[in-house]
């Protein structure tokens, strides 16, 4: 079986913003750009901390309430991990462009959300905005059979047959277990408490693995950036 936390990351794909990254995994592809810290408009300004402007643009059609909801969830994940008291009265614009959804947009948004979170981590690191910690996300689906099997990063086909879908995000310094915290748990569908615990376990493992991979991707990038020093 293919490793489902596998992904492909590209940095600095855009030139007019401070940081950008493209995150691709199994049919879902997201481009994230970060501009900041910049001067906010008067109504966006927060007196003590960094203001966030988050924009999610779908691959097909105009942004709707679905994208607004994604923006809200992303804000919830990104606010605690940004060192926001370091940048009072400033603004950070984070834009997400879904290039390929990899799921049926009408019913699901789990793949898009988890890819957005991972892309945001890479783009924020690329932009050099202060982060409290590394973070990563994965999605999960529970198949409606007797065993209630948990699938990590399910495909569009598997999502269609799922009885419940979940998105998880954890922060962790280096992907080793004891220090991780849950940043996001979004579930929809029908499931038992027991199943949820199973999902949390499996999800944490997958997220920690993703953190390690994301860090590796960053490390490679920094090495390439600083190739002139050796």
């Amino acid at each position, binding site marked *: 079986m293919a490793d489902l936390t596998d992904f492909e990351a590209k940095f600095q794909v855009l030139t007019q913003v401070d940081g950008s990254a493209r995150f691709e995994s199994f049919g879902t592809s997201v481009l994230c750009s970060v*501009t900041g810290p910049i001067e906010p408009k008067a109504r966006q300004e927060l007196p003590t901390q960094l203001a966030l402007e988050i924009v999610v*643009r779908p691959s097909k059609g105009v942004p709707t309430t679905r994208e607004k909801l994604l923006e809200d969830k992303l804000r919830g994940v990104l606010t605690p991990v940004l060192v926001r008291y370091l940048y009072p009265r400033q603004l950070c614009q984070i834009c997400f462009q879904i290039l390929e959804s990899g799921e049926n947009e009408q019913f699901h948004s789990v793949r898009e959300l988890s890819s957005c979170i991972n892309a945001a981590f890479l783009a924020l690191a690329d932009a050099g905005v202060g982060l409290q910690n590394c973070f990563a996300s994965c999605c999960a689906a529970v198949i409606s059979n007797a065993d209630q099997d948990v699938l990590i990063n399910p495909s569009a086909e598997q999502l269609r047959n799922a009885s419940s879908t979940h998105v998880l995000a954890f922060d962790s310094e280096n992907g080793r277990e004891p220090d991780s915290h849950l940043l996001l748990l979004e579930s929809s569908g029908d499931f038992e408490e027991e199943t949820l615990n199973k999902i949390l376990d499996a999800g944490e493992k997958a997220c920690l693995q993703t953190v390690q991979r994301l860090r590796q991707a960053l490390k490679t990038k920094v090495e390439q950036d600083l190739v002139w020093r050796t």
Partner: protein
Amino acid sequence: MAKDIEISVSQGRFLIETLKQKVRLDGRRFDQMRDVDIELGKDRGDVMVTMGKTRVHCRISCEIAQPYEDRPFEGLFVISTETSPMAGPQFENGNNTGEDEVLCSRIIEKAVRRSGALDVEGLCIVAGSKCWAVRADVHFLNCDGGFIDASCIAVMTGLLHFKKPDVTVSGERVTVHPPEEREPVPLGVLHTPICVTFSFFNPEDTEENIKGESNNEISLIDATLSEELLRDGTLTITLNKNREVVQVSKAGGLPMDALTLMDCCHKAYNIVERLTDQVQRVIKEDEQTRNQYAAILSSENARES
């Protein structure tokens, strides 16, 4: 534009001075377009166009909708060009009332939709009640000038690449066949309009431009962002391979001699010819790679082995 980005006076003077000496900062000739890179995605109608640093993504999609009452035999076709701060700090999210945004979307609209590049009558399923609504969503990812040219290529490549699901109609009942069941059908693209944008600069004073006979104005093809910020006038010509002028837009700006503008048209035609060939080549190559897999997977192949 939300915030006007400005170029410093010294940088601007330097750029004009180099142009007077017939040099462009990126080493191109005045009538040379940047290389266009067209990338097709896994899904049909998913196109990424890169011209230098400019990058535009276009996604074609379709769904079944109700046609307009006054046009029961026509399908719907919408091109949406919305900007986001991703392309650069000068763009505001969801605000498309800036002068440049309006001009850009209107020109693409005229070049592709109004010129009848897509056969909308072919999108009709049941007259008056059901038709295909085709959307082209243009995403501006990175702005370094030439958005109009790049988006037009992206939309046209997307339309040529896209295939809509096959349908069968029996009375009022419409069955949509998923791609596994029946091969999807391509859209009816009637011609391929391509836009070429010229930027005009006036190296001398205004009096010379208006009263003089010298016609020393400089015209550049496919300006970069810094050239766009400094230009005095712009002209976008849309042509197709059949030697038809589809659309011309020189909305004010530096007055230019009519013969120079005709000359621009002929230069543009050569570029259009080349780009049309490129678009068709890319589509053909993609078709071949897709068919290659089909050959491997087909049962015909299995019998041979």
